[in-house]
C-alpha cells in the first residue's frame, strides 16, 4: 500500500535521505527504525507531501499523496504531536479536522473515546496537555477519517508504559483488519512487539529490512542456561556449535534450538532454559547496523 522507491532528499549538498526504497503491504505493521537524525522523519514528510523529494517517488495505493482527493480519509498521519494550537481544546482540534474531512460530528466523540480523552480532557486546552495526551490527540486526528493507512512518527514518545501497550493493541488491531501501518521509532523495543517487518535506516540509508524473523534468523542464535555453565559450553563445543557469553550466566549458542537441545541431551547435561535469543539479538543487530549504540539508547527530549 505504501511504496517508497529510490527516495532521495538533499538539503543544499547534504543528503538527508539517500536512495531509500521499501514498501508496506496491507495488513502489516512496519517498524521504521533508526537513531535520531537518521532520516526517518524526512522520509515520512516526503511520503505525505510536506517535503518535496530531490528524486525518487513515494506513493500510497499507487498514487502520490498530493493526488489523493481527500487525503485524510485514506491516510491518517501523525508526524509531530507538538504541532497543535495550544489555544484550542482537544475537541476543537478534532472538530476542525472533522469539518475538513467531511465526517459526521459524532466521529469526534468516538475518536476522543477511542484514545481515552473523552470527558474533561476533551474540554481542556491543548496547551495544558502532557506530551502523552498530545500523542493521543494526534492519534485521534489520524484515526478520525477512518483511513486505511496510518503513518506515525515516534507515536510512543511521551506515552507511559500503559499507553505504549494500549497503542500497540490499537495498531495491531488496525493492521489485522487489513490496514497498513508505518511507524517510526528510535527505540527498538517500542516497535518490535508490534511490527511484522522492520526497516532500519542509518545515516539516510536503509541498512536492513525484512520480516522480524528474517532479521532475527541471521544473528539471533539460541539462548541456553543451565546450572553448570562450563559443562554446558563444553557439550556445545563438542557438538561443533559456537558459543558466546549471553546475558547474566546464560550462553548464546550459534545454532537452532533443536540442534542445541540434541547436543546437550547427547552430553547428558541439565538445562534450565532454552529459547531463541530474541530481542537481545535484534538489539545487537540494531546497534551494529546503526553503528552507534549511544544514540540508540538516548531518549529524545
Amino acid at each position: 500500500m505504501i511504496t517508497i522507491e529510490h527516495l532521495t532528499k538533499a538539503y543544499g549538498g547534504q543528503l538527508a535521505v539517500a536512495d531509500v526504497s521499501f514498501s508496506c503491504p496491507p495488513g502489516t505493521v512496519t517498524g521504521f527504525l533508526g537513531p535520531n537524525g537518521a532520516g526517518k522523519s524526512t522520509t515520512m514528510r516526503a511520503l505525505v507531501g510536506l517535503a518535496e523529494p530531490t528524486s525518487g517517488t513515494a506513493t500510497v495505493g499507487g498514487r502520490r499523496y498530493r493526488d489523493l482527493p481527500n487525503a485524510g480519509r485514506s491516510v491518517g498521519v501523525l508526524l509531530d504531536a507538538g504541532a497543535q494550537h495550544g489555544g484550542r481544546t482537544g475537541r476543537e482540534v478534532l472538530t476542525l479536522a472533522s469539518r475538513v474531512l467531511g465526517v459526521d460530528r459524532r466521529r469526534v466523540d468516538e475518536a476522543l473515546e477511542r484514545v481515552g480523552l473523552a470527558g474533561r480532557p476533551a474540554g481542556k486546552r491543548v496547551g495544558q496537555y502532557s506530551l502523552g495526551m498530545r500523542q493521543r490527540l494526534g492519534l485521534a486526528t489520524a484515526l478520525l477519517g477512518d483511513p486505511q493507512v496510518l503513518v506515525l512518527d515516534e507515536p510512543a514518545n511521551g506515552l507511559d508504559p500503559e499507553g505504549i501497550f494500549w497503542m500497540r493493541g490499537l495498531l495491531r488491531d488496525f493492521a489485522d483488519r487489513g490496514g497498513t501501518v508505518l511507524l517510526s521509532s528510535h527505540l527498538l523495543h517500542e516497535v518490535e512487539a508490534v511490527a511484522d517487518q522492520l526497516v532500519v535506516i542509518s545515516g539516510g540509508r536503509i541498512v536492513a529490512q525484512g520480516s522480524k524473523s528474517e532479521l532475527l534468523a541471521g544473528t539471533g542464535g539460541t539462548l541456553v542456561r543451565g546450572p553448570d555453565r562450563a559443562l554446558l559450553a563444553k557439550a556445545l563445543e563438542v557438538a561443533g556449535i559456537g558459543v558466546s557469553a549471553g546475558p547474566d550466566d546464560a550462553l548464546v549458542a550459534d545454532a537452532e534450538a533443536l540442534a542445541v537441545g540434541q547436543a546437550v541431551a547427547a552430553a547428558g547435561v541439565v538445562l534450565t532454559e532454552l529459547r531463541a535469543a530474541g530481542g537481545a539479538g535484534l538489539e545487537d543487530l540494531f546497534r551494529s547496523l546503526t553503528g552507534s549504540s549511544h544514540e540508540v539508547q538516548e531518549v529524545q527530549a
Partner: protein
Amino acid sequence: MSTATLTPDRPRTLADHPAPSLLQLVRVELRKSYDTRAGRWLLIVIGLAVLAVVALSLFVEDAPKTFADHFGFTQLPISILLPVLGILLVTSEWSQRTAMTTFTLVPRRSRVLVAKVLAATVLAVLGVAVAALAAVVATGLTPVFSDSERDWGISAALVGQVLVVQVVTVLAGVAFGMLLLSSPLAIVLYFVLPTVFTILVSLVAALDWVRDWLDLSTTSMPLFEDGLDAQGWLQFGTSAALWVLLPMVLGWLRILRTEVA
C-alpha cells in the same frame, strides 16, 4: 493481478472520497479565526473599539452627525485591527505549527490559501456590516445626544468603495502574513513599513508621484468619501498592487515551496 491482490479483507487500492469543497474549507478557516483565545479577544476588542468610536462621535459636539459620517468613523477601528486577524489567519499556522495538520489534510496547499483569502474577505465584509450596524445605532441616537437631526442619506457608491477598501486592507494583512510566516514580524512590519513609507514620500517633494500612486494610505483616503473618479481608482489600484498583490504572490510561492516541519 496476482491472487494476493484479490484477497477481500486486504484492500490494495484506496477508497475514493470526495475532496473537501471550497465552502467547507472557507468555513473551517473562519472557525479558526475565532476558536482560539487570541482570535476571540481580538474580535471582542474590535467590537469595543467600534462602540467607543460611536460614543466619541456622539458626544463630540463638532463631529458631523449624518449616517454617512458615522459609517465612515466606525470603519476606522475595523481597518486598523481586522488586518491583524488576517495576519494571524496565516501566521498562526506556523507559530503554532498547525500547518503540518492543515497541509496533510489538504495537501494541495493553494486550496487552503484560496480558502484563507476568501475567509479574510468574508471577515472584512462582516466588519463593514458591524460598523454599519453601529452607525445605525449612532444615527438613531443622534437627536438624543445632540441638536442635530437624523440624516440617513448615503450613496451606494460610498458603501461599495468602503467595502473595497476594507477587503483590500484585510488582504494586505493576509499578504504580509503569507510573505513573513511569523506573527510578531508580520504584525510589526505591517504597521511600521507603510507608515515609514508614507512619511518618507510625504517629506520629499520629488517623491510626490510615488505618494500619489504607490502609498496605500494616501490613495485609500478618497475611498471614504463619495464619488471617486477613474484616476482615483487607478491610483488606489497601483498602490494595492504594491502592498497587497506583490507580497501575496511572493508569499504564495514561498508557502507552495517551503517544507513544513
